[in-house]
């Protein structure tokens, strides 16, 4: 019963977002996300995007999880120290210094 209700509710919402003026669908919302987060959406698109966030629970929660996931993946910057090799291959040092001497 709950599933049927959810399906009906989504259908009603889908029809409203697809056909009412001043609305965008969830799929259109999806295509605006990168520009929205970069703050590069044009004013009109931004208005449509923010209106959609207010009306659509799924997209609101999706965007929050998407941003949380971005924050997590951005932490990959710092590799663990133990991955850094202790020594530098001497042949590499020699090759770099020789290339510098060639230049001079």
């Amino acid at each position, binding site marked *: 019963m709950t599933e049927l209700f959810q399906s009906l509710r989504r259908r009603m919402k889908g029809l409203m977002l697809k056909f009412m003026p001043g609305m965008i669908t969830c799929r259109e919302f*999806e295509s605006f996300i990168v520009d929205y987060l970069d703050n590069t959406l044009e004013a009109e698109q931004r208005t449509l995007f923010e209106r959609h966030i207010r009306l*659509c629970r799924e997209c609101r*929660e999706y965007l929050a999880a998407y941003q949380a996931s971005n924050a*997590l993946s951005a*932490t990959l910057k710092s590799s663990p120290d133990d991955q850094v090799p202790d020594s530098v291959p001497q042949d590499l040092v020699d090759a*770099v210094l020789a290339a*510098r001497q060639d230049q001079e």
Partner: protein
Amino acid sequence: MSDKQITTAPEPIAATDHEKLVRDNYGWMLVLARDIVGDHALAEDVVQEALINAVRGLDKFKQRSRLQTWLRRITINQAITKLRQLDRIAEEEFDEYQPEFDKLDCRIEAKWATLPTPERILEQQGTQALIEQAFAKLPESYRLVVRLRDIEGYDTREVAELLSVSENNVKVRLHRARAALKKLLEPVLRREDSKEKPL
């Protein structure tokens, strides 16, 4: 000569400085190159070329305080050059782990009652490894765009120039990769034992 000129003028560089530059920076440059090209031997080639470019250009580099930032850029450029030589920059098909929509283009998304803060998630044991595993599931050309944009902090235009693709292509790859990471990281984001904030 003004004070400003005095502070920015480079000092003469001795040969020992070149060796010091190599020894001080080799380690982290190798890790960075390996993260991008995904192979130790290739990464060594990349770092050697990057260091050669660096010592050759050092005389012209005036902002010594930003040496690591400069070396980071040289390493990334060299790594991308290497990937391009190996024809590993081209966009691949990638339709997995993308969001779902119904026939009316309505999003299908399981309810999120709460969402833990990223800081809280990172405190949990094993989170970093799970993030790395999720990242490894992306195709290389998508992983590269996320690394450049979200990890290294380049903007869309810079990434497009580095990869010789359009800005729109960068945005499309970035979004698909982020969407996939969101789906792959859902088990971590929905973990019940995290301290959560209501949505």
